[in-house]
């Protein structure tokens, strides 16, 4: 630590820390318009000048590092004047007349500028008014008070030159270069924080400008609209397009994004009961200062008027509005009738991976304590439970203590088993890139990446160029590749002996070969060599990131076992901290922890639907789930639901499952709820309400609590649901759910920091045999059908099957391999038909090299999960589904 003096105050800071950060952290003001905390200085704005005793002239505080006994002064007249002069040069190319006007605060919207008739663009007419860093900087440097505007009227200053054209051509960003002061924060955010490099500095001298891609429209560049550049822009140059003019918020609320299991914490700014802007909130140290396009913009995916504002009850073919009381009473009456006629096991319950822990907890409580049925699950349950079971069998627990922040901070070797993590778990992919290509301070040793995926994702570009390798198996052969890798590792004498010492039996994984996986032997050997090095360097962190596919339970189970085997061989007992599972949806882990899983002879979701078809299950209560959208074998799901005597759905949107319901009870929007989520590494984080409830909608915990109470009364069951607020449910969870004891809802800052995991996990580690079917060749005219979560399509938009669920329209089609397309005579933009027996899906073809030959890819959320119609119901096979690909005749 260094001891230094800033404006007479003695402060302590780490040796070598950037002076500008130390000044700011100690509560002093220093103007800086280009610095981004934790990144190397760019030193472009030159306004962070300070006086340092003993140094010649003024110094930039961003490039100066802290030394012991440094004496810094930030407030001398020289400093102020120098900063003012530099700022005046910046202002000259901005609409500076307001910035340097002492009357600005008195101006009202619509007022004419009395000062200068050439002033047409003013702070008052700027969307960033009162939240503009440049404006604040001008105020704090007294630019208006001292009338520092030496360049007014010069030839090419803001008011004298024609402004460049703004780019308003995409749904997310607006880019208005006339506001730009060329601080290049956006360039560096895109390069150094996001590893994307979509924004560049172009031109020289007077023509220096920010450009996206090669200088064209933003949506033609490789920008993926994470908005990191918006967060750092000090002016109105880069702004969110939705609610651009409304985003002066009433208040900010810290909550959690519900788009994937990374669980990025976000701050939602709201106004008039509606969220209008989202910024990252660093509570979750893994997501830290970053979110993705979903987190930032999907709050706006559906209009408030598209949400359920009324409770509905079926009357013939129609759903008619009703009151909450009546909807509840009708549901209770019907459920009690089924209970009376067919017993408790004729009633089943579905929770949801998008619902809060509290809601899921109540669902299973009603099922178990009130009704007494073992049939409890959620649509994503079977897949994620298969992974949890494989994890538990391998490591002795499914609540592994590994902390995701270890990946960017420590991991030297990273193995990713996932289909395009960039799209499914964007920020997790980002943090892996951080480990491979570190740009943040303090710099760490870069790691190496092995990716196993049949489909190319952006993460693949971070493998080979950085010394790693991308293994591209034939679709469905991921487990085979992992098996072959495990076998190669087990052949290594040191690894085998270490494994034996740790109580593992290497014979379990030996003798697998890569013959039929489609992976090149040399690449596999390269990967094995990297893993052997990782195994030999016991002090270096290894990370295996496993993200299951959303369908195909049997295949996922084998992949999970095979992945766990590799982790165990590389890290031995330490593998409990290096194996990371990224579940398919935001609160899968919470739902599993709350016990939304079948008991004993209980049926999982597939079993429940099977039983509904067979007439054994007569009633179903669905809280937040949408099995028609999420499950394969769509027609069968619809048929099963149609056979039910009573289907009660509690949901925010009238999705397809709700449309088939007998009773629909309106739930509050996710961002309008209180509660908790558990993310991928079981960080338990709080949701806080930032959005008004539309119409009669009530948060689901209230509905479920009332349903439980009334149903108990009706069934003559003495169970009490005495909650006054969501927090009461949480409090009960902390008392009853294992792992959640450490949380207290009120007054505890541990939310977001604590994790519901078994920190002491150790002990029962084991290698598991993996069974993989050899890949079957495609039949005549057939292609393998791949699906998965994609980046832009919003869950809510998809639930309502909105045409704009993917506002960029990048994902509303089928990806066809270019070579296949040539063979079939398909051009980009052609309509093609995917056929599986009677089921057909017609969509637009996008040609790409990202999917392997002989395969096509459709987003699992496309058109409300339409691809589910082509997927076979879960049948225990690890084979990849095949469909016929036909060009549609005009």
């Amino acid at each position, binding site marked *: 630590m260094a001891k230094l003096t800033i404006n007479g105050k003695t402060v302590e800071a780490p040796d070598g820390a950037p002076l500008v950060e130390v000044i700011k952290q100690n509560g002093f003001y220093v103007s800086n318009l280009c610095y981004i905390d934790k990144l190397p200085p760019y*030193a472009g704005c030159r306004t962070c000048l300070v006086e340092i005793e003993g140094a010649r002239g003024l110094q930039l505080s961003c490039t100066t590092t802290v030394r012991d006994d440094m004496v810094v002064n930030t407030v001398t007249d020289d400093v102020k004047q120098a900063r003012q002069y530099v700022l005046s040069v910046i202002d000259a190319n901005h609409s500076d007349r307001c910035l340097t006007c002492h009357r600005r605060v008195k101006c009202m919207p619509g007022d004419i500028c009395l000062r200068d008739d050439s002033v047409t663009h003013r702070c008052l007419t700027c969307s960033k008014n009162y939240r503009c860093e440049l404006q604040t900087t001008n105020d704090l440097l007294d630019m208006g008070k001292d009338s520092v505007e030496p*360049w007014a009227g010069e030839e090419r200053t803001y008011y004298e030159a024609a402004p460049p054209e703004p780019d308003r051509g995409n749904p997310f960003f607006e880019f208005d270069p006339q506001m730009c002061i060329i601080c290049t924060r956006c360039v560096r955010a895109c390069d150094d924080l996001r590893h994307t490099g979509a924004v560049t500095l172009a031109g020289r001298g007077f023509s220096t400008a920010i450009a996206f891609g090669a200088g064209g429209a933003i949506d033609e560049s490789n920008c993926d609209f994470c908005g990191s550049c918006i967060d750092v822009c000090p002016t109105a140059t880069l702004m969110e397009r939705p609610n651009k003019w409304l985003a002066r918020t009433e208040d900010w609320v810290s909550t959690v994004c519900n788009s994937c299991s990374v669980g990025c914490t976000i701050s939602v700014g709201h106004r008039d009961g509606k969220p209008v802007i989202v910024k990252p909130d660093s509570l979750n140290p893994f997501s830290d200062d970053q979110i993705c396009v979903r987190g930032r913009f999907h709050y706006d995916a559906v209009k408030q008027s598209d949400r359920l504002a009324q409770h509905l009850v079926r009357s013939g073919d129609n759903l008619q509005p009703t009151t909450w009381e009546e909807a509840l009473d009708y549901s209770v009456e019907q459920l009690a009738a089924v209970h009376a006629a067919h017993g408790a096991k004729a009633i089943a319950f579905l929770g949801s991976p998008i619902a809060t822990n509290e809601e899921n907890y109540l669902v299973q409580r009603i099922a178990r304590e009130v009704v007494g049925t073992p049939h409890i699950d959620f649509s994503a349950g079977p897949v994620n439970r298969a992974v949890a079971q494989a994890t538990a069998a391998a490591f002795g627990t499914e609540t592994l203590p590994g902390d995701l922040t270890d990946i960017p901070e420590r991991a030297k070797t990273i193995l990713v088993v996932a289909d395009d993590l960039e799209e499914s778990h964007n920020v997790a992919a980002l943090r892996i890139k951080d480990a491979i290509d570190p740009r943040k301070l303090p710099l760490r040793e870069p790691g190496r990446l092995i990716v196993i995926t049949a489909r190319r994702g952006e993460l693949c570009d971070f493998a080979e160029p950085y010394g790693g390798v991308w293994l591209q198996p034939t679709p469905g052969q991921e487990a085979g590749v992992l098996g072959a890798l495990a076998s190669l590792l087990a052949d290594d004498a040191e690894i085998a002996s270490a494994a034996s010492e740790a109580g593992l039996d290497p014979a379990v994984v030996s003798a697998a070969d890569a013959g039929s996986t489609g992976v090149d032997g040399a690449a596999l050997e390269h990967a094995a060599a990297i893993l052997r090095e990782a195994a030999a360097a016991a002090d270096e962190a290894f990370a295996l990131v496993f993200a299951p596919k959303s369908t195909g339970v049997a295949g996922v189970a084998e992949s999970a076992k095979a992945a766990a085997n590799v982790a165990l061989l590389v890290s031995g007992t330490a593998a409990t901290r290096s194996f990371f599972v990224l579940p398919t949806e935001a609160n899968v882990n919470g739902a599993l922890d709350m016990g939304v899983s079948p008991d004993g002879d209980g049926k999982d979701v597939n079993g429940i639907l099977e039983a509904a078809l067979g007439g054994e299950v007569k009633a179903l209560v669905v809280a937040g789930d949408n099995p028609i959208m999420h499950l394969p074998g769509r027609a069968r799901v619809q048929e099963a639901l149609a056979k039910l005597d009573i289907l009660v759905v509690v949901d925010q949107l009238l999705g397809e499952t709700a449309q088939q319901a007998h009773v629909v009870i309106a739930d509050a929007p996710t961002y309008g709820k209180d509660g908790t989520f558990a993310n991928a590494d079981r960080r338990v984080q709080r949701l806080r309400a930032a959005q008004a409830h539309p119409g009669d909608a009530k948060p689901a915990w209230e509905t479920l609590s009332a349903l439980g109470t009334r149903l108990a009364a009706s069934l003559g069951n003495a169970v009490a649901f005495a909650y006054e607020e969501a927090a009461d449910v949480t409090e009960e969870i902390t008392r009853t759910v294992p792992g959640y004891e450490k949380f207290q809802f009120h007054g505890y800052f541990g939310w977001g920091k604590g994790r519901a995991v078994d920190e002491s996990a150790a002990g029962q580690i084991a290698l598991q045999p993996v069974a993989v079917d050899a890949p079957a060749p495609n039949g005549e005219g057939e292609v393998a059908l791949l699906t998965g979560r994609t980046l832009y399509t919003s869950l809510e938009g998809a639930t309502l099957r909105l045409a704009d669920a993917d506002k960029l329209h990048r994902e509303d089609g089928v990806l066809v391999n270019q070579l296949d397309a040539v063979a079939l005579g398909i051009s980009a933009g052609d309509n093609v038909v995917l056929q599986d027996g009677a089921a057909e899906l017609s969509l637009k073809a996008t040609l790409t090299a990202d999917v392997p030959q002989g395969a096509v890819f459709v987003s699992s959320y496309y058109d409300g999960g339409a691809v589910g119609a082509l997927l076979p119901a879960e049948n225990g096979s690890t084979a990849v589904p095949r469909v016929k690909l036909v060009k549609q005749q005009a």
Partner: protein
Amino acid sequence: MANEAYEALRNQAAEAWQQVEKPPRTLIRVPMATCTLAAGADETLAALRAAVDERGLDADVGITGETGLCWLEPVVEVRQPDGSVILYENVTADKVDKLLGDVIGGGVCNDLAFAVAAGPDVDAVQRLEDFDFWAMQERRLIARCGVIDPENIDHYIASGGYGGFVNAAEMDPEALIKMVEESTLRGRSGSNFPTGTKWNFLRGKEREPKYLICNADEGDPGAFVNRIMMECDPHAILEGMLIAAHATGATFGFIYLREEYPLAIERMERAVEQARERGLLGENVLGSGVTLELTVWKGAGSYVCGEESGLLASLDDARGMPRIRPPFPADSGVFGQPTNVNNVESYADVTLMLQKGIEFYQSVGTAANSGTKIFSFSGHIQRVGVVELPFGFALRDLYHAIDPAPWGERRTLKAVQSGAALAGILPAHIALKLPLEPEAFREHGVILGGGGIVFIDDTACIVDLNVMFSWFLEDESCGRCTSCHGGTQRMSEIFRRIARGEGRQDDYGKMDILAQTLQYSNCVHGSASPTIMSRSAEFFREELDEHINNRRCPAQVCRDLIRYEITGASDALAEAAAICPVEAFVQEEEAWSIDQARCIKCNACKDVAPDDVQIVDIAAGVVVPAAATP
């Protein structure tokens, strides 16, 4: 061991040089360099070759580099078997027949002869060493320029080339660096950082590989010092880099050249290739244990890529922007590895020092700056060229040598600009008193720079010069520092405004603001860019005031302040009318006049009809009061 290998190379080379030194028959050599090509040397060479071939003449034709006598180019050298060497001036292709007619068989072409470089005296032809321009020089670094064939490595070796490296390899690297430090050799690009100290930084780094960069991105307007070295004696630079490799432990090197120097690129690439063939580059050069791989790298021609960290960024395939320091190149240069960057001339200096010994090297110059410096000069002078002078040489003597006699209507020298855009400008009466030494120039707030000197007489306008230079500075600003890219914009606007006659007295205050602001820029491009503005305001205040207060351009250059009027009636006016690109000449009843709305003030008519066209101040006689400060 090293010496044996080198002796073998030398013996081989001596034979090749013998063919030039003692030619069996008449040897005619044409200088091939950018400057001579501009004068038509390629045509001369082709004509010579064609004539010799077709007529079966008893002569050989070869090439050399240029001598620095740019105003006489093409300077053709004729060597006879008797050892006489005579230089002929301005031998363009049309004079080839005449030259050949006289020199084949040993004669002299008196009409074209310029000087006798060796051999017996010739009547009415001066000896080269008596020629004042030549006599004042201390030709050491450019001693081989115009003498050897730059495309022939043997010529270089025969003249002692690579002997400097052999000498260096026998020295301990520490001792070698100490010698360079004590030689007072400082960076020749204009920054004057001690070369030995730089080498010491790199030597102290343990991370490998280490890199050596030769900064050949000579971009200053009016500077062609490095160009002549690279085009006419490329191996001297390679040898300097080899010596530096031995001293610092670097094993890879780049020669960073600009695309605008195509011939230099070609020569350097050829030199690297030849050196590699002879085992003078690569692993374990001449058995000395020194390893150096060199690559010639073509930059994309951004001015700031001549700044060392900008150059490194460009080599890294990043945007050509000077970097933030620290880290310094010795810690993190190209590809993040320890790196040393030196100028072309600095490497050549090291070669000289090692070939001829430190005593010889220090035998000229001053106490603070021993040795010599190459200068290129241009502007309003008669003899444009390149010379090598010892440090401390009087600028006045140089000026008299390159602008020796009144030529017609003499105008007076007004200003001298050394070191180009960033260095500033001095009035002639101060500049001509100065010795050519960095310290002397620094005392007056300007920089001696990399060797380019521009002489400016009173036909040039200081405001006009500033318009040009501030535009150049603005256009070449990389865009990092707002102080620089914003400040230079404002600077060029102020001067454009003054040139339009819209200057205001408070512009001096604005210039002060800019001078203060620009000094807080990251690299020297920003921090030094106000120099020329400030020196102009300091030394040429009257001329600026004349523009600002009276809307007059005393040099009659600023187009918005002058107009062209016809004052005569000679026949030349018809020609002037014909040459006018905008047809501004109007004839009414035989009398010519100029349509002022059309005239673009290009001066073409005045060139044709100087006596009939006059330049008139638009505001002549009208005194405009200083604009009120807003």
